[in-house]
């Protein structure tokens, strides 16, 4: 099962859950799964960056999630 970790800014939307697990294989399906579990989280998931196994994606969609993957949601960075 992949490890899914939420930032502090998500905790109010995940009933305080900071870490969970998932057996999805694609990021798109992870968003669906998490949105189904916590509907209020969906909007935040649309506007977040995510790090999958250390690789940061500003706009993840079909990225692979392996059973041993670590998935961290994080604020989007734009810069100047």
């Amino acid at each position, binding site marked *: 099962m992949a490890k899914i970790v939420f930032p*502090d800014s998500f905790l*109010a939307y995940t009933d305080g859950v900071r870490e969970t697990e998932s057996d999805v294989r694609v990021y798109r399906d992870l968003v669906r799964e998490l949105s189904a579990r916590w509907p209020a989280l969906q909007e935040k998931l649309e506007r977040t960056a995510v790090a999958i196994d*250390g690789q940061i994606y*500003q706009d993840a969609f079909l990225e692979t999630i392996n059973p041993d993957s*670590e998935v961290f949601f994080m*604020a989007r960075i*734009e*810069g*100047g």
Partner: protein
Amino acid sequence: MAEAVDYKQIGTRPIRPDGVDKVTGRARFGADLVLPNMIHGKVLRSPHAHAKIISIDLSPALAMDGVMAAISGADFPGGGIEGEASGEGGGSLDDIARNVIARDKVLYHGHAIAAVAAATPAIADAALAAIKVEYEVLPPVLDVVAAMAEDSPLVDENCYTNLPEKPAKPSNIANIGKLERGNVEEGFEQADVIIEREYKVPMAHQGYIEPHACVANIDETGRGSVWCCTQGHFEFRTATARILGKNVADLKFIASEIGGGFGGKTVVYLEPLAVMLSERANRPVKMAMSREEVFRATGPTSGTVTRVKLGVKNDGTITAAKTWSAFEAGAFAGAPTMPGIMAIYAPYDLENFSVEAFDVLVNKPKVAAYRAPGAPQTMHAFECALDEAALALDMDPIDIRLHNAADEGTTAPYGPKFPPIGFKACLQAAKNHPNYTKPVPEGAGRGVSAGFWFNIGMQSSAEVHINENGTVMVIEGSPDIGGSRASMALMAAETLGVNYEDVRAQVGDTESTGFCNVTGGSRTTFATGMAVTQACEDVIAECKKRAAMTWGVDEDQVEWQDGSVVPGPGVNAEVKPMTLAELAGKAAKTGGPIQGRASVNAQGAGASFSVNFADLTVDTETGKVDVLSFTAIQDAGTAIHPAYVEGQMQGGAAQGIGWALNEEYIFDDNGVMQNAGFLDYRIPVASDLPMIETQIIEVPNPSHPYGVRGVGETPIVAPLAACSNAVSRAVGKRLTDLPLSPPNVLAQLDA
């Protein structure tokens, strides 16, 4: 660490393709376009920092000879504009629309409230003076900490802190960001030394030399073009269209040459006004800000108050860190709190930390992105605290950083594990640098600091066209601020195996190439470079196809070597290689012109770390600080054009030194900026600085075809604390408030 690659083009230092035009004055910047029948637009700005607009009467202006249009906020579509502006802290387009021109309230001194277009600039000025505006003046909110109090006057009565459950009362605190790990209090209990201080960094401007300017030419159908200086003409088109309720397809945006942006030209100010004025006047309208307008009404970066508590063991191990930071957002939400708190501890491997930051409205100009937004402010505080800890432990400031340094596999404070990074390599390079191994000059202090920025990817497009003689045209949509046309040409030349001189790179307008996000976030060489590289690979695939067609072999029997197609093993020995020029010359017979294209949403940007150290002296009689030497070391991934990388490092250092030593917005009690000009807002000039010495570290980013990380943001981060630490060591007292200008130095010495 990846092995060094022997490139033929990448890593060379050709002269920039736009250089001759720029040094001869032929390059055309935002205000340089002149069109037939063009008229001139000007903006009326608020004389108050905070006031209700009771009424605006444009009729006296419209009645004047030579005045062809006059507009106010009432002429613009109402709220509810969806989407966000580009750049860090760009904010919502709804807010940007109200920043472009005020509606019911003015929120800072200089806020636009009306605009006119007239036959001459002088008539436009007279028309502005004729407009009648009635205000109800309100108390300005100017102090960031006081603004957070529950009883503070409100900048925006509709601003509620962005929490899952809407608070009962509005507040000047728009957003709160927080990160934490481990147990901070237990960490402090393990510490042998605790450092606890408050640090201040002032609001500062990006200080680009070219003021904002544009020319809009809209016809009677509402369609037309906008020429402007911008970091991203595609996103300017989007913002302008949405603010005006137009179709993006009706507006063509053309990026002029740009005289600096540094994040400040990622958001629109004049363009929506110019488009509406041009449409109403049915004439081309030029608008150009004065320097005073640039200071008063365009994005500075946040001033901050930051409190740090740091615990370390006697061996230098950081046991805990706790930070609280208040960021000035200006009149609209969007201070760079999140990148600030994500960056503050990024160079270090910490078990226990917390950091909390507040995005606070004040009656000052809306902040915009500025190089590594948020990171200089927060990292200044932490890097100063770390220096004080090193002093307390009698430990070398590089050693304490090496002892705690993040490396590949370290869990970053913002969540993921770092891929290969170059922070330790930068620290080692600093420690071995001849400027560091030599003694500190008599009377000087030597300050050390680390810097960091995430870097980003985002969307880019590129096309590559092969001319009939085999020369190469690269067209992409990223405005060239720091020499990106040369970098694109180098990557194209490397990929295709041709000479740099045979490649021309151009920035296309919004109708000539595919969408590109802004030139910002240190993304262009990384992301647009990735698109250019892939477009060249598309060309190579096409060339192989043409060769296979010519030779009567399968495509997989054709190889690409040094700019030519060559037959693979097993192909008839009579078949001879063909150069790109030979292929292009026969293109008409093999399917027409050869071209490649690519669009990417580039992922996998690699973080860039830096280490700066500097020797500074302080005249304790006058408070004047002199920079004797400054050394900047940074991991660039692969340096595509090393001279431009060094230029970015030097430019960022100069801006950071200016912010540390002199630059600040000075407001009076009414919220009026008192130093809105380069005489009084003092950025460093050449005579203020020594040669900034640079050393590029190259730890390639494995996610980019040539290992690029991006270099533009990181260089401004470390100079603030490097200067603070040097000054504090020179005077033997911790100075916490920037800028370290003569009066501020004397005040802190006397405190």
